[in-house]
């Protein structure tokens, strides 16, 4: 089926070349980082993780959200999603590849990465994160590919694939829970040390991921003859709405605990993010943008007329993705490191090479996604013809 990836329109090739150019730029910057060290980033001894680990966290969520199409389809026998499960699974594949790359570029000593396997350390959550992410990647590649191959031949996929599909459902929850545990079990980082972290992660994932999938479905409908379907998009929008309500609700719970208890450690990171602390507040405009976009997207999603209108739904999805990205891909990490263990504040802002490396990895993810979607849609178009 791979050959379908090398037959395409000018637009398809143009898009791939554009992504390749961004990937090349990112790779160039990465080589610079590889030889000069992570000092070329905006990270410091106080804010020792930044944009890279934020992206890891965000895209683990997008990957996990594949389950939001798989679960209704296979556990609730919601047949309509059968049309787009592969799109969800391949989105998960592309996301996990981005996650692994983000971990890799964040390592100070990437050539020693195999030490994680050579000296397995079950006490480290990072060890488990490595396992769950890689297994989830494999599950989605195998499932997506086999289901697509069966669809092409007009046969039903094999029974053992069904077993893998059932495994992949709780596995999706596990990847984001384990990722939340990276943060939620660390003493002394108040913004992270919260039992609701995994639940917050899952809710933000289950709105942001399907929102991205809705946008992808709309693009697919526009640039190909395959229509993911009106009903499918409508159901996805419902999922996005509920998940976003939970996401915002969980965040409000955090605010209550912090500000009613008045415990300084709980309040300070939130004050830093939304108001600034000790004269440092470079994330304040970002966090307020996220807050406003979150509420706006909720309004557009909850009002039936705007949720069902694909124009306003598109706007809602875009601003929801921006809001959740700021919250999880930026604020979560910096907020966790602020204030420092010495109760001081050190500013963090990514440098240009750091942003270009990040963009390069996004481009890699979209490159993989484009190819996988191209194959999928070519097969679906053939079967339909």
């Amino acid at each position, binding site marked *: 089926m791979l050959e379908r990836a090398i037959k395409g329109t000018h637009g398809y090739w143009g898009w791939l070349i554009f992504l390749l150019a961004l990937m090349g730029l990112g790779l160039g910057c990465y080589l610079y980082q590889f030889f000069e060290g992570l000092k070329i980033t905006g990270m410091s001894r106080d804010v020792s993780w930044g944009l890279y680990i934020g992206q890891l966290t965000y895209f683990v969520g997008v990957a996990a959200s594949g389950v939001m199409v798989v679960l209704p389809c296979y556990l609730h026998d919601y047949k309509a999603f059968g049309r787009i499960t592969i799109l969800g699974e391949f989105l998960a594949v592309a996301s996990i590849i981005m996650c692994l790359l983000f971990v890799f570029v964040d390592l100070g000593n990437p050539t020693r990465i195999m030490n*994680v396997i050579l000296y397995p350390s079950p006490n480290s959550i990072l060890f488990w994160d490595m396992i769950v992410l890689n297994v989830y990647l494999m599950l989605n590649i195998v499932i997506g590919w086999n289901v697509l191959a069966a669809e092409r031949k007009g046969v039903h996929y094999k029974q053992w694939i069904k077993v893998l599909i059932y495994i992949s459902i709780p596995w999706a929850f596990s990847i984001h829970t384990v990722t939340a545990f990276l943060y939620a079990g660390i003493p002394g980082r108040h913004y992270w040390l919260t039992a609701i972290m995994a639940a917050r992660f899952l809710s933000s994932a289950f709105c942001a991921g399907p929102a991205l999938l809705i946008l992808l479905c709309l693009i697919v409908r526009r640039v190909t003859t395959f229509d993911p379907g009106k009903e499918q998009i409508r159901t996805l929008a419902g999922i996005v709405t509920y998940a976003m309500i939970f996401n915002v609700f969980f965040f409000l719970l955090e605010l209550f605990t912090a500000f009613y208890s008045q415990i300084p*450690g709980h309040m300070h990171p939130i004050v830093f993010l939304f108001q600034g602390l000790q004269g440092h507040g470079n994330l304040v405009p970002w966090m307020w943008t996220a807050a406003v976009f979150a509420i706006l997207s909720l309004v557009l999603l909850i009002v039936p007329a705007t949720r069902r209108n694909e124009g306003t739904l598109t706007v809602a999805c875009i601003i929801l993705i921006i809001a959740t990205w700021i919250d999880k891909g930026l604020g979560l990490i910096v907020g966790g490191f602020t204030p420092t263990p010495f109760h001081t504040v050190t500013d963090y802002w990514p440098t240009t090479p750091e942003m270009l490396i990040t963009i390069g990895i996004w481009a890699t993810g979209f490159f993989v996604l484009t190819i996988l979607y191209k194959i999928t849609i070519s097969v679906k178009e053939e079967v339909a013809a």
Partner: protein
Amino acid sequence: MGVDRREFLKIAGYATLFGLGGKAAIDILAPGELEASMEGIPLTQGKRWSMVLDMRKCLKQQEAGKDGCKECIIACHREHNVPDWGNPMHAIKWIWQDKYEHVFPDTPNQFIDEGVRHKPFILMCNHCFNPPCVRVCPTQATFKRDDGIVSMDMHRCIGCRFCMAACPYGSRSFNWGDPRKAPKELNPDYPTNPAYPERSMGVVEKCNFCVELVAKGEFPACVQACDKIKVNALNFGDLDAPESNVRKLLREHYTIRRKPALGTEPNLFYII
């Protein structure tokens, strides 16, 4: 190595006789001080190494000099080839000074004794009995030894910096750049100690309670430096031995530890 205290003193004494300086010199000039600080230690056989920092002595010494006192910091950073980047964001710190309110941020008190307010306290790794950095390390590059020292294999570390996020004391530093490329004007004679392994770029490092010296039956470099100027503010000893110097100090003085509520059980105690 198996050098006990008596043997160690003998060697140190001979060393002084031959003009090499060292501990025996202190013993002659300040009799009793060194004996007291070494009570109950065969240095190679500790079970739970710890340190009691007598900040009264330390602050007194710091206030005596015009530019304070940085003897312990200089000695440690020379011993371990710690580069100076001249940039606080990339600083590598094994032992350093910071204001009281930064060292003990969980005990804010706006009406605190002027004797400690803004005063520079000594910080280093707490060598926690229950170290979160060890718990999170995905390669066992950082580990707790049988003698309680939380050590670090800089040649296994992959530089994921999970330990830096996990340490609630800011005691872990990352090599953001190649130490050999640190500004030459700040590090004219780098590397300062060819006997100590150099680290590469992209690994985490920290105070190791001078495992390399303890293995030879010597005190950590900071303790030696402090004893050398006869301040004796840093007391290194075995918390597991009831009659050790540190246990005696803890019995006789009220001491505090950094962020005890986190359950990390720091092995560093401060006499205020």
